[in-house]
């Protein structure tokens, strides 16, 4: 899986949990919470959807890796590739 594909997966999850947000111009390097109405419960939703849909676990001490789209892709892409291997 490429990083871009991984970013799209994260965007698709955010679209489900924050359906009122405009996701057409999410800046990859800017923290998601600085550009979208997301709270801590929403991030837990992202973690839950990764677990449900893709069998990917994000340990609590690594939640910060999901701060931006870029950091999410950096962190999650190897996990997706490991799951798909």
């Amino acid at each position: 899986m490429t990083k871009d594909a991984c970013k799209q997966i994260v965007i698709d999850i955010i679209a489900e949990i924050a359906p009122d947000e405009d996701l057409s111009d999410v800046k990859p390097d800017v923290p998601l919470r600085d550009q979208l109405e997301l709270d801590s419960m929403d991030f837990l939703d992202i973690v839950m959807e990764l677990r449900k849909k893709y069998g990917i676990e994000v340990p609590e001490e690594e939640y910060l890796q999901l701060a931006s789209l870029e950091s999410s892709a950096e962190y999650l892409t190897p996990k997706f590739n490991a799951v798909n291997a």
Partner: protein
Amino acid sequence: MESGRIVITGIGLTAPNGNSPAEFRENLLAGRPRIGTLDMRYIGPVPAGICDFDALRYQTRKELRVGTRAGSIGVYCAREALADSGIDWARRDTSRVGVYLGITEHGNVETENEVYNISLYDYDTRFWSHHHNPRTVANNPAGEVTMNLKITGPHYTIGAACAAGNAGIIQGLQMLRLDEVDLAFVGGVSESIHTFGIFAGFKSQGALAHHDDPNKASRPFDLDRNGIVVSEGGCIYTLERVEDAVARGAHIYAEASGYHINSDAKDAVLPNFERQAECMSAAIKRAGLRPHDIHIINTHATATPQGDIQECLAIRKIFRDCGETYINNAKSFIGHSMGAAGALELAGNIPSFEDYLVHPTINLDKLDDQCYLPRLVINQPVRADRVDAILNNSFGMLGINSALVIKRFTG
């Protein structure tokens, strides 16, 4: 010196057959019920009262996803009541506003959904939602209203089984008299049709209605009645002290003047007409009235064989000599909206203060002799000569009885 008189200045509601007081009333007078069929998990098709209000009118899609159906019903009803009241919300001190909502139960829906959800993952609790606790705390529906309207005063729900709608109104009335708040959002809500447990429970009890035509399934007082139609719904009123309402030039629908709540202290499910009669009498007395001053009684009757008979015994005991007291029932149209029932059914009768029409109870083809009541309004509305006071009955499991007396506002 304040009088302690409390008045209704706004009404917001959603019922299976109406999403505004006017639409609800129109359908009650026209004899139009609206009961649908739900395909319930584990049980299959059941008759149910289903609301179709526009949830997105006052909430975002995310709020609907995170919150509960009862919370959403509460938000819709509260916002509609607020708009109806004409209160200048931007200038309100919301720390002096309270939210008191009756619930029959809360949390069953969300818990059942989570249990079902983890069943899809071999009961691995890592898949249990972090939203479960805020969704299931008992204050959830009232709390969602405060978050939506930015109310910083007190909020809680009142668990009172099927007497809860009246209990919510009574709680707000008391808080206004105690000067705890200056404005109270009161009433009741129910999301019960989304829990299979309530249907399964009534079915096991032999108290779940069934009929080929769902619109004919809820038939209080009828010889062929066979149980309860479970419904969702909500109704919230704005209550104010009469001095405050008059000072701001509010339209005053009625005065909430008498109430009583008591307990059978006998059986978990079987009603008791003697305690019900005592409850009605005490509410009428507190309102400063006598039984013949009551011109409309909204019955609680849910179309169970025993419940209807017991309530009729109680009414006959108190009102046997009352020649101007009409009696009706809204559950025949909308089913039993549980925690919302008392508040919602009252809203169906309040317009009678202005138009003098009394809506009927419908689906009454063969009157059960044991349910005979003089001036029971059957299948067609009637025009009353006088409508000065309404008695609103709501009774519930564990032997809780509530009665509320609403009077015409006369200044």
